[in-house]
């Protein structure tokens, strides 16, 4: 039985979560820039490598 649970600041956790989400949205923008300038054969090979893992 755990008896030393840490105190959790839910407001701060919520801000971290939103911040992380905003960072992921920025990553998507960067990834779209990459996809647009990259030949289909290259980006889709990379996508295949992730999906076929």
């Amino acid at each position: 039985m755990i008896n030393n649970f840490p105190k959790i600041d839910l407001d701060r956790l919520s801000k971290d979560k939103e911040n992380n989400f905003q960072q992921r949205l920025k990553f998507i923008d960067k990834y779209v820039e990459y996809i647009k300038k990259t030949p289909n054969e290259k980006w889709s090979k990379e996508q295949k490598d992730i999906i076929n893992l």
Partner: protein
Amino acid sequence: MEIEFDNNKIRFNKVLNNLDKFTINFTKILDKLNIKYVIISGYVAILFGRSRNSEDVDIIIDRVDENKFTELWSELYKSGFECILCDTSEFAFKDYISINERLRFAKTNTFIPNMEIKVYSESIDKWVLDNSIEVIFNNNSIFISNIELQIAYKLYLSSEKDIEDARYLYKLFIDNIKLNELDKWVEKLNVKNVFKRYLL
């Protein structure tokens, strides 16, 4: 990305991944039986390069009677698919298809990925079926949802994953989609705030 837009057709080529192959194999059976369909949701973004996987592919099909559904069931089993929710076509039709419940098919003895089939029931389903986009890639052809509606609908679903898919499609196709049409869908689905907050 080399891609061509031509009215309701999109043409491009890619190195096919397992989810692409799974989707092509399944939709070929629908084509063979002349069952109208449209692919919606996450796979639309994945088809065009989104860097994530999915456990299922969502598809809306036209209404089918029990005979047609039995024919579909038989063709799917012959082609190495099986239903992961029930064992007989009679049960599947009665307890799922006829009451607009979603049915799932995977390759035999597997569970994921699976095809989640929904027979159209809402007016928006009918619209998306009648206004699908044909995507021609690597000598295959599949039908997907109108992109503008897809973006707005993803915002309506509104999980973080859905918003990310919406942003991906929006940023990727911003020069190809009809922005006034997207505005209309955003308004109709009441997602103006989400649109402004996460896409602009």
